């Protein structure tokens, strides 16, 4: 493939502000991709680079990286889904995801880690997806790692927030590893979650999307796909609306006729799109098996300033419990802006609240990820236009107990490192001042009614809601990425993952998208009549 000229900075994107009249827009392409995050951008590039005409439709706005402000509150309003307030139905778990050109890759913490081999093996054996066996998918991992500048943190990329945790791990004899990150020449600003204004984070906005465009793909932002068009069980395109992000006014209707449709809107929005489109759901699996991989932050307050937000956000993770026989609780360092404390940990009031905030420079933060078991469900409620999403997820009693175990471990690490106090992320205001009282304090947290409002949880890694598998009674998508019930309709995002990936899924999604692109180009050439 010969690429056309690659812009040095920014990407050409058609936005609502570019639409001059309200006439319906009708486009034709070989492939239409819904979503410009990791799953969408990778597959769009691979197909465009092989000569297919590709159109990418992104519901979020285009904010060039030159406009990123390194202000978390601004980022929530401009780069995140529902201004950072997307939650489960009950409202006790925030489900964060990017909503902009580049999707979650723009606001990721840059953690890029493979799924453990035992997970890949279970996907190959238990779910019948041979292509995901370690010896097969590793080649795709290797490719995306190289393209996204994935490397293991060097010592200067491990900040003092992480160093405090490392001290604790080493005192306890627990294994830890530097994070692997997709970043080139990191400037150590610590503002990853608000987007990288110097383009050092290898997000889709500076990698696969401009490459796809250089290979001939077209990208539309502000474009909400309402439905996938189908004819006789075959996907033939999509229809939607171009919406002004400033006032939510519909600027134009858009229809794209395509030979292949790829849904890559993420584990929350892809099943919603398929449900709105009335994709047959004979096995009742569409939207089910959702894992949120929830996390919350435990704070250790040290007697001397840590300035935990300085340096690379993602320094290290504790891998002591991630092996096959462990309980697979992931813990990793990371402290962002003061507003992060509002969303995850802060429960005090008045003078106490301000004193707590004044301790900010003394904090190290350990994010505890609990591997949930896929009991979540995402569904569209109401009519296609005017309906709304529902994310049904509540922590089970077993998950609650596992979570408490994680909190105790985090507390132990901090006390072993010399912390004088540990703040725990529950809806009750609790803190421990010594390791001796830690277990009793954590055990005092009550599961209550269905675990509602027990822990302050945030999900960064929603996955599994259109799972892939060889058994069509249990899966939505076949082992090659195609939806069982609709030919020509493919999925390319974290909704495919057959079970929780244990690690952050970004890199796995990128590798999987490469794999699916190859399946389309080898197994399904017949779909392309051009």
């Amino acid at each position, binding site marked *: 493939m010969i690429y056309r000229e*690659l*812009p040095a*900075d920014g*990407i050409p994107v058609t936005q609502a502000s570019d639409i001059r009249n309200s006439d319906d827009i009708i486009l034709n392409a070989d492939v239409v991709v819904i979503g410009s995050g990791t799953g969408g951008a990778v597959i769009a590039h691979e197909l465009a680079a092989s000569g297919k005409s590709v159109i990418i439709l992104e519901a979020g706005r285009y904010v060039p*990286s*030159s406009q990123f*402000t390194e*202000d*978390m*509150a601004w980022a929530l*309003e401009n780069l995140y889904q*529902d*201004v950072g*307030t997307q*939650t489960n139905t*009950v*409202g006790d778990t925030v489900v964060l995801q990017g909503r902009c050109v580049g999707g979650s890759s723009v606001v990721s913490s840059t953690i890029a880690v493979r799924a453990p081999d035992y997970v890949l093996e279970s996907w190959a054996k238990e779910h019948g997806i041979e292509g995901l066996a370690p010896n097969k998918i590793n*080649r795709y991992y*290797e*490719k995306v790692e*190289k*393209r996204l500048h994935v490397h293991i943190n060097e010592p200067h990329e491990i900040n003092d927030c992480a160093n405090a945790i490392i001290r604790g791990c080493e005192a306890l004899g627990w294994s830890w590893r530097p994070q692997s990150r997709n970043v*080139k*020449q990191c*400037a150590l*600003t610590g*503002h990853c979650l608000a987007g990288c*204004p*110097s*383009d*050092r984070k*290898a997000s889709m906005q*500076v*990698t696969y999307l*401009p*490459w796809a465009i*250089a290979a001939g793909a077209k990208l539309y932002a502000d474009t909400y796909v309402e439905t996938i068009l189908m004819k006789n069980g075959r996907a033939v395109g999509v229809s939607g609306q171009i919406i002004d992000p400033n006032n939510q006014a519909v600027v134009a209707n858009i229809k794209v006729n395509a030979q292949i449709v790829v849904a890559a809107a993420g584990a929350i929005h892809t099943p919603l799109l398929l449900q709105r489109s009335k994709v047959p759901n004979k096995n009742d699996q569409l939207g089910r098996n959702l894992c949120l991989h929830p996390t919350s932050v435990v704070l250790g307050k040290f007697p001397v300033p840590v300035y935990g*937000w*300085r340096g690379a956000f993602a320094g290290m993770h504790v891998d002591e419990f991630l092996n096959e026989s462990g309980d697979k609780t992931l813990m990793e360092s990371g402290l962002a802006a*003061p*507003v992060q*404390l*509002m*969303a995850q940990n*802060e*429960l005090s*009031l*008045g003078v106490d609240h*301000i004193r707590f*905030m*004044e301790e*900010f*420079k003394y904090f190290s933060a350990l994010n505890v990820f609990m591997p949930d078991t896929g009991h979540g469900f995402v569904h569209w409620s109401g009519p296609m236009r005017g309906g709304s999403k529902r994310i049904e997820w509540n922590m089970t009693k077993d998950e609650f107990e596992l979570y408490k175990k994680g909190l105790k471990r985090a507390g132990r690490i901090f006390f072993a490192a010399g912390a004088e106090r540990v703040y725990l992320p529950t809806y*009750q205001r609790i803190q421990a001042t010594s390791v001796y009282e830690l277990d009793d304090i954590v055990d005092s947290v009550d599961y209550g*009614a269905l675990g*509602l*409002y*027990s822990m*302050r949880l945030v999900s960064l890694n929603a996955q599994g809601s259109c799972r892939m598998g060889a058994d069509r009674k249990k899966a939505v998508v076949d082992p090659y990425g195609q939806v069982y019930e609709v030919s020509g309709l493919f999925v390319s995002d974290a909704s495919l993952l057959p079970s929780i990936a244990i690690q952050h899924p970004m890199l796995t999604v990128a590798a999987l998208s*490469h794999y699916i692109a190859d399946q389309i180009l080898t197994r399904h050439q017949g779909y392309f009549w051009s």
Partner: protein
Amino acid sequence: MSQQDPALVQLESQLATLSRRRFLTTGLILGTTAATALTYPARVFADTGVPTYIRHLSEAEYRLFDKLRQVFLPTERFSALPSTTEVPVMENLDNMVGRLNSDTRFLLGLGAKTLEFSTLYKMKRFSSLNNKQALQQIRAWQSGLALQSGLIVSLKTLLGIAYWRDPRTWQALEYDGPVTTKWGIRRLGNMPVPRDQEENIKI
């Protein structure tokens, strides 16, 4: 009755003077008292106006958040911090609320109204409590029913973001804020297109 409508008080007084039959007067006084009680909720709910810069919060929401602001963020006791009026907390909050999706916005409105009027058994809205009473009330909610606790924590989260997002608050925390421009970090732009030959990876 301290909460009685002045117009009804005046009417009662006039009737007491004009009436020739004591039982009628008594009946009317009882009647107007009942009317006072019956119309009290309506008067409690009546709009009293919000500042013109507030475009999205309702009157009840504004009053609730404004009381929360005073109780949650007593910045006047900390000289290094800007006040919650110097930082336009309510305006920031209003802008944030204006950007919520319709479902979340609806739930926020419902939750805020529930809390604002849940103290009516004390014959006062939450926003009419003094700061000490309000603080006690919030503590009670926070340690009360799970949903109540979740709701008040969510409202506090919004309010906290509306304050701590302002760069003027960061100096007291020694938080650096944005640094890329300050440090003169060069932008790298788009990364070069991949060359599979150079990658030397066969798939």
